[in-house]
Protein backbone atom coordinates (compact mmCIF):
# COMPACT_ATOMS: atom_id res chain seq x y z
CA UNK A 1 0.00 0.00 0.00
CA UNK A 2 1.32 3.42 -0.90
CA UNK A 3 -0.16 6.82 -0.04
CA UNK A 4 1.35 10.10 -1.15
CA UNK A 5 0.07 13.62 -0.53
CA UNK A 6 2.18 16.05 -2.50
CA UNK A 7 2.27 19.37 -4.34
CA UNK A 8 4.34 17.93 -7.17
CA UNK A 9 2.88 16.19 -10.21
CA UNK A 10 3.13 12.38 -10.41
CA UNK A 11 4.06 9.90 -13.13
CA UNK A 12 0.92 7.79 -13.55
CA UNK A 13 2.72 5.35 -15.87
CA UNK A 14 5.45 4.68 -13.33
CA UNK A 15 2.84 4.19 -10.60
CA UNK A 16 0.91 1.75 -12.79
CA UNK A 17 4.07 -0.20 -13.57
CA UNK A 18 5.04 -0.36 -9.89
CA UNK A 19 1.67 -1.79 -8.80
CA UNK A 20 2.13 -5.46 -8.07
CA UNK A 21 5.48 -5.40 -9.89
CA UNK A 22 7.32 -8.69 -9.54
CA UNK A 23 4.18 -10.65 -8.65
CA UNK A 24 3.12 -13.17 -11.27
CA UNK A 25 -0.21 -13.68 -9.48
CA UNK A 26 -1.44 -10.16 -10.35
CA UNK A 27 -3.93 -10.50 -13.19
CA UNK A 28 -4.79 -6.87 -13.63
CA UNK A 29 -4.55 -3.31 -12.43
CA UNK A 30 -7.49 -0.92 -12.44
CA UNK A 31 -6.62 2.73 -12.08
CA UNK A 32 -8.20 6.14 -12.10
CA UNK A 33 -6.51 9.44 -12.85
CA UNK A 34 -8.47 12.59 -12.05
CA UNK A 35 -7.72 15.78 -13.94
CA UNK A 36 -8.67 19.39 -13.26
CA UNK A 37 -11.47 20.57 -15.55
CA UNK A 38 -11.93 24.15 -16.72
CA UNK A 39 -15.60 23.93 -15.93
CA UNK A 40 -16.92 22.69 -12.62
CA UNK A 41 -19.41 24.80 -10.72
CA UNK A 42 -18.36 27.74 -12.86
CA UNK A 43 -17.35 28.15 -16.47
CA UNK A 44 -13.84 29.35 -17.14
CA UNK A 45 -11.98 27.91 -14.17
CA UNK A 46 -8.40 29.14 -14.42
CA UNK A 47 -6.97 27.62 -11.27
CA UNK A 48 -7.67 25.37 -8.32
CA UNK A 49 -6.34 25.43 -4.77
CA UNK A 50 -6.39 22.20 -2.80
CA UNK A 51 -6.41 22.47 0.99
CA UNK A 52 -6.20 19.43 3.27
CA UNK A 53 -5.93 18.43 6.93
CA UNK A 54 -2.40 17.04 7.06
CA UNK A 55 -2.70 15.15 10.34
CA UNK A 56 -5.83 13.32 9.12
CA UNK A 57 -5.37 12.88 5.37
CA UNK A 58 -3.06 9.87 5.25
CA UNK A 59 -4.96 8.18 8.07
CA UNK A 60 -8.31 8.65 6.30
CA UNK A 61 -6.95 7.30 3.02
CA UNK A 62 -5.32 4.38 4.77
CA UNK A 63 -8.63 3.44 6.41
CA UNK A 64 -10.42 3.63 3.06
CA UNK A 65 -7.81 1.38 1.45
CA UNK A 66 -8.02 -1.09 4.32
CA UNK A 67 -11.80 -1.21 4.00
CA UNK A 68 -11.36 -1.99 0.29
CA UNK A 69 -8.85 -4.74 1.14
CA UNK A 70 -11.26 -6.38 3.55
CA UNK A 71 -13.98 -6.45 0.92
CA UNK A 72 -12.04 -7.42 -2.22
CA UNK A 73 -8.84 -9.23 -3.18
CA UNK A 74 -6.33 -6.38 -3.20
CA UNK A 75 -2.73 -7.38 -3.84
CA UNK A 76 -1.37 -3.84 -4.03
CA UNK A 77 -2.82 -0.33 -4.04
CA UNK A 78 -1.60 3.23 -4.48
CA UNK A 79 -3.32 6.54 -3.79
CA UNK A 80 -1.67 9.85 -4.69
CA UNK A 81 -3.45 13.16 -4.12
CA UNK A 82 -2.03 16.53 -4.97
CA UNK A 83 -2.52 19.63 -2.82
CA UNK A 84 -1.73 23.32 -3.36
CA UNK A 85 -2.18 25.23 -6.59
CA UNK A 86 -3.28 23.40 -9.75
CA UNK A 87 -4.49 24.49 -13.16
CA UNK A 88 -6.89 22.99 -15.72
CA UNK A 89 -5.72 19.68 -17.23
CA UNK A 90 -3.33 19.05 -14.32
CA UNK A 91 -3.48 15.60 -12.77
CA UNK A 92 -4.99 15.80 -9.31
CA UNK A 93 -5.47 12.22 -8.08
CA UNK A 94 -4.25 8.71 -8.85
CA UNK A 95 -5.87 5.56 -7.49
CA UNK A 96 -4.56 2.18 -8.62
CA UNK A 97 -5.41 -1.35 -7.44
CA UNK A 98 -3.67 -4.58 -8.43
CA UNK A 99 -5.60 -7.81 -7.98
CA UNK A 100 -5.68 -11.39 -9.17
CA UNK A 101 -9.28 -10.76 -10.29
CA UNK A 102 -10.36 -8.07 -12.75
CA UNK A 103 -13.71 -7.47 -11.04
CA UNK A 104 -12.02 -6.96 -7.66
CA UNK A 105 -9.52 -4.47 -9.12
CA UNK A 106 -12.33 -2.40 -10.68
CA UNK A 107 -14.59 -2.48 -7.61
CA UNK A 108 -11.83 -1.67 -5.11
CA UNK A 109 -10.53 1.19 -7.28
CA UNK A 110 -13.96 2.77 -7.71
CA UNK A 111 -14.80 2.25 -4.02
CA UNK A 112 -11.58 4.03 -2.98
CA UNK A 113 -12.35 6.94 -5.33
CA UNK A 114 -15.96 7.23 -4.11
CA UNK A 115 -14.89 7.19 -0.45
CA UNK A 116 -11.96 9.52 -1.04
CA UNK A 117 -14.42 12.01 -2.56
CA UNK A 118 -16.69 11.94 0.49
CA UNK A 119 -14.48 10.95 3.45
CA UNK A 120 -10.94 12.26 2.88
CA UNK A 121 -10.26 15.80 4.15
CA UNK A 122 -9.54 17.74 0.96
CA UNK A 123 -11.24 20.97 -0.11
CA UNK A 124 -11.16 22.69 -3.49
CA UNK A 125 -11.22 26.42 -4.10
CA UNK A 126 -11.75 27.47 -7.69
CA UNK A 127 -10.40 30.59 -9.33
CA UNK A 128 -12.45 32.03 -12.18
CA UNK A 129 -12.53 35.40 -13.93
CA UNK A 130 -15.03 36.50 -11.30
CA UNK A 131 -12.81 35.62 -8.36
CA UNK A 132 -12.35 32.69 -6.01
CA UNK A 133 -14.89 30.45 -4.33
CA UNK A 134 -14.95 27.22 -2.37
CA UNK A 135 -16.44 24.31 -4.28
CA UNK A 136 -19.63 22.84 -2.80
CA UNK A 137 -19.87 19.11 -2.16
CA UNK A 138 -22.10 17.30 -4.64
CA UNK A 139 -25.00 15.06 -3.68
CA UNK A 140 -24.02 12.76 -6.58
CA UNK A 141 -20.68 12.03 -4.86
CA UNK A 142 -22.46 11.18 -1.64
CA UNK A 143 -24.85 8.81 -3.40
CA UNK A 144 -21.94 7.18 -5.26
CA UNK A 145 -20.36 6.35 -1.89
CA UNK A 146 -23.67 5.26 -0.37
CA UNK A 147 -24.22 2.55 -2.96
CA UNK A 148 -21.28 0.51 -1.56
CA UNK A 149 -23.10 0.02 1.76
Amino acid at each position, binding site marked *: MKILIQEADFDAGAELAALGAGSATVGGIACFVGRVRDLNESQGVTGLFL*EHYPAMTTRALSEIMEAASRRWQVQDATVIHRVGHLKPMDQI*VFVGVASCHRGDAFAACEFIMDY*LKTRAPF*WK*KETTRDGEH*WVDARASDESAAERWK
Partner: protein
Amino acid sequence: MKVRVLYFARLREAVGMETEVIELPGDKSSIAALLDLLRMRGGVWGKEAAVDSGNRLAVNQQLAGMITPLQDGDEVAIFPPVTGG
Protein backbone atom coordinates in the same frame (compact mmCIF):
# COMPACT_ATOMS: atom_id res chain seq x y z
CA MET B 1 -10.21 20.52 30.21
CA LYS B 2 -8.83 21.89 26.98
CA VAL B 3 -9.26 20.85 23.36
CA ARG B 4 -7.53 22.13 20.25
CA VAL B 5 -10.01 23.09 17.53
CA LEU B 6 -9.08 23.36 13.85
CA TYR B 7 -11.09 25.02 11.07
CA PHE B 8 -10.65 24.31 7.38
CA ALA B 9 -11.45 25.73 3.98
CA ARG B 10 -14.56 27.96 3.70
CA LEU B 11 -15.13 27.66 7.45
CA ARG B 12 -11.55 28.71 8.22
CA GLU B 13 -12.10 31.86 6.17
CA ALA B 14 -15.55 32.51 7.65
CA VAL B 15 -14.36 32.39 11.27
CA GLY B 16 -11.06 34.07 10.46
CA MET B 17 -8.76 31.58 12.16
CA GLU B 18 -7.09 28.23 11.57
CA THR B 19 -6.93 26.92 15.09
CA GLU B 20 -7.54 27.77 18.74
CA VAL B 21 -7.46 26.11 22.15
CA ILE B 22 -10.81 26.06 23.92
CA GLU B 23 -11.42 25.44 27.60
CA LEU B 24 -14.47 23.33 28.38
CA PRO B 25 -15.91 22.91 31.87
CA GLY B 26 -15.42 19.60 33.69
CA ASP B 27 -13.18 16.55 33.04
CA LYS B 28 -15.26 15.16 30.23
CA SER B 29 -17.22 16.90 27.54
CA SER B 30 -18.73 16.34 24.12
CA ILE B 31 -18.88 17.73 20.61
CA ALA B 32 -22.37 19.03 21.38
CA ALA B 33 -21.07 21.02 24.40
CA LEU B 34 -18.23 22.46 22.29
CA LEU B 35 -20.65 23.60 19.57
CA ASP B 36 -22.97 25.15 22.21
CA LEU B 37 -20.04 27.17 23.48
CA LEU B 38 -18.99 28.29 19.98
CA ARG B 39 -22.53 29.34 19.06
CA MET B 40 -22.68 31.60 22.09
CA ARG B 41 -20.03 33.79 20.43
CA GLY B 42 -22.74 35.01 18.05
CA GLY B 43 -22.04 36.39 14.56
CA VAL B 44 -20.92 33.77 12.02
CA TRP B 45 -20.59 31.26 14.86
CA GLY B 46 -24.35 31.07 15.27
CA LYS B 47 -24.63 29.62 11.80
CA GLU B 48 -21.32 27.73 11.48
CA ALA B 49 -21.57 25.94 14.82
CA ALA B 50 -25.27 25.13 14.43
CA VAL B 51 -26.27 21.48 14.65
CA ASP B 52 -27.67 21.78 11.10
CA SER B 53 -24.78 23.82 9.67
CA GLY B 54 -23.81 21.00 7.32
CA ASN B 55 -20.25 21.18 8.63
CA ARG B 56 -18.48 17.90 9.41
CA LEU B 57 -16.48 16.95 12.49
CA ALA B 58 -13.42 14.91 13.28
CA VAL B 59 -12.05 14.03 16.71
CA ASN B 60 -8.40 13.02 16.80
CA GLN B 61 -8.36 12.80 12.99
CA GLN B 62 -11.37 10.51 12.73
CA LEU B 63 -14.79 11.50 11.43
CA ALA B 64 -17.10 11.95 14.38
CA GLY B 65 -20.75 12.66 15.19
CA MET B 66 -22.48 15.07 17.58
CA ILE B 67 -22.53 12.71 20.54
CA THR B 68 -18.82 11.96 20.42
CA PRO B 69 -17.29 12.40 23.89
CA LEU B 70 -14.30 14.69 24.31
CA GLN B 71 -11.34 14.39 26.66
CA ASP B 72 -8.63 16.79 27.68
CA GLY B 73 -6.08 17.19 24.89
CA ASP B 74 -8.35 16.02 22.06
CA GLU B 75 -7.98 17.55 18.62
CA VAL B 76 -11.34 18.55 17.13
CA ALA B 77 -11.65 19.59 13.49
CA ILE B 78 -14.68 21.33 12.02
CA PHE B 79 -14.93 21.65 8.28
CA PRO B 80 -17.34 21.83 5.33
CA PRO B 81 -18.17 18.62 3.41
CA VAL B 82 -15.01 17.46 1.64
CA THR B 83 -14.49 18.08 -2.08
CA GLY B 84 -11.25 16.32 -3.05
CA GLY B 85 -10.58 13.83 -5.78
